[in-house]
Structures are given as structure tokens and as C-alpha cells.
């Protein structure tokens, strides 16, 4: 049975991000959400020595480097929005399912911005995934 590379990589994401959810919960049980965010970025930074690409970094096109920097900025800013919503009195049972709806926006934007298309089976999979995310976040 052939398993596509992209599928294996997404399983890696599920494993690490899923475990991260537990560790983050343990962290926010002991320290404030903002402190937890700061230490999260420190955790990212601890990986930097292994990730440093060397001089080849400057050979990539500037706009793609900007996309990489922007990805980190937006991801962390979005996390701040989530913590701010919880801090402002939003119930976790409502705030987290709302915030988990980002794939819906990506599914709408990707065909428009990236001119991508998906098969009918994949479309059904996306539908199931969106329902699953909403239910799992309750």
C-alpha cells in the first residue's frame, strides 16, 4: 500500500501538535496564558541551532523569505487573539470551536488565491474534517 509523502508529513503534524495541546494545557494550569505564549516562542527558538540553514538562506527569493517570516508572525499573533478572547471572559467551549474554524476560511481562500482545486472525495474529507474539528473543540 502506497502512502503519499504529504499524508505522512501531516501525521507528523497531528502527533506533535496534538501532544503540544496537552503540554500547553499543563503549562497554563501553572502559569498565565501570556507567560505560556512567551515560553512557547522560547521553545521555538531552542530549535534554531538545528534549523539554521547557513548562507543558502540568502539565495532564496526575498518574497518567499517574507512569506516564512509572515507565517511565524501571523501564527503567534493568532494565538494571542485566542488567549485574549479567553481572558476577556469568552467561554472556552465557545471560543475554541470558533477559532478552530480557520480551515473553512483556508478552503474558501485557497482556490481563489492559489488557483488550486480538490477532488470530490477530498471535498467530502474536508467536510468531515471541519465537522470533526468543531465537535472535538467542544
Amino acid at each position, binding site marked *: 500500500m502506497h502512502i503519499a509523502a*504529504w499524508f505522512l*508529513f501531516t501525521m*507528523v*503534524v*497531528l502527533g*506533535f*501538535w*496534538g501532544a*503540544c495541546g*496537552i*503540554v500547553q494545557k*499543563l503549562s497554563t494550569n*501553572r*502559569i498565565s496564558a501570556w*507567560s505560556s*505564549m*512567551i*515560553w*512557547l*516562542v*522560547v*521553545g*521555538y527558538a531552542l*530549535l534554531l541551532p538545528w*534549523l539554521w540553514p547557513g548562507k543558502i538562506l540568502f539565495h*532564496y527569493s526575498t518574497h*518567499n523569505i517574507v*512569506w*516564512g*517570516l*509572515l507565517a*511565524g508572525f*501571523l501564527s503567534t499573533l*493568532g494565538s*494571542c487573539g485566542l488567549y*485574549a478572547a*479567553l481572558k*476577556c*471572559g*469568552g467561554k472556552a467551549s465557545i*471560543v475554541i470551536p470558533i*477559532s478552530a474554524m*480557520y*480551515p473553512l*476560511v*483556508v*478552503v474558501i481562500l*485557497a*482556490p481563489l488565491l*492559489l488557483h*488550486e*482545486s480538490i477532488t470530490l472525495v477530498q471535498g467530502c*474529507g*474536508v467536510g*468531515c*474534517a*471541519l465537522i470533526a474539528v468543531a*465537535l*472535538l473543540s*467542544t
Partner: protein
Amino acid sequence: MAVSDTLRTRWFWYSISCVIIWAPFFIASKLGAREIPAPTMQFLFTIGSLPIMVVLLLVTKCKLEKDVKGITYGTGAGILAGLGTVGLFAAYGTGESTSVVTAVTSLYPMVTVVLAVLILRERLTWLQVTGLAFAAAALVLFSL
């Protein structure tokens, strides 16, 4: 709470801001990962997240709790999240559809929920059990 009341709350708009900010994060990730290898993307991602950390340090006036376990868990979460994001960039780098990769990776609460049962001895609600069934169905459909 009535819909009009909800629309006036700050928490609602912060929640919406997550969705509005995270969606472009995935689009930016895809655009960058088309040329740049996953580990280098994660390097840039980390540099990009540093300004937010600086703002948070200013907001908190650098007054951070000294709970060693809390700090260890917080830092560990960063390492796990960082490693997971390398996988995300690698998946986008294969050229697979952004919608599909994003939808599959958004299923990570499935792992969190299962680990919460196994490690934290939390109980699943029937909604979460239904969610797990939909997640399994999604994974089967994507693997076809």
C-alpha cells in the same frame, strides 16, 4: 446571550480575529514552502514570531512567573509545536492541495483529546466521540 449581545462582546471579536489571522498564516506557509525547505521555513517562522514575544514581554513588563514546571511545559510546548510546524511546511512543500493539507492538520485536537483521556484521565463527551468518528472518516477519505 442574544446574537446582538454577543456581537458587542470583545471575546467574540478576538475569537474571530484568530480565524482571520490564522487563515493567511496557512496561505503564507504554503507560498513560502513552495521554494524554501521545511527546516528553513521553520527558522524564518521563529524569527517572525520574535516581535510578538517582545511585545508580550513589554505588556507583562517582563514579570514572568517562576514556576519551573510551568516554564518547562511552556517551553516543551514550543518545541513540540515547532517540530509539528516543520511537518506542516514539508507537507505543503510536496505540492499537495493547501485545502487538503490544512484540513488534515486541523484534526490535531483528535490526538489531544485521545492523549487527554490516556494521560490526564479526562472523560470524553459524546460530542467529542462523534468528532473522533468524523475525524477518522476524514482521514480514510484523504488516504484514498
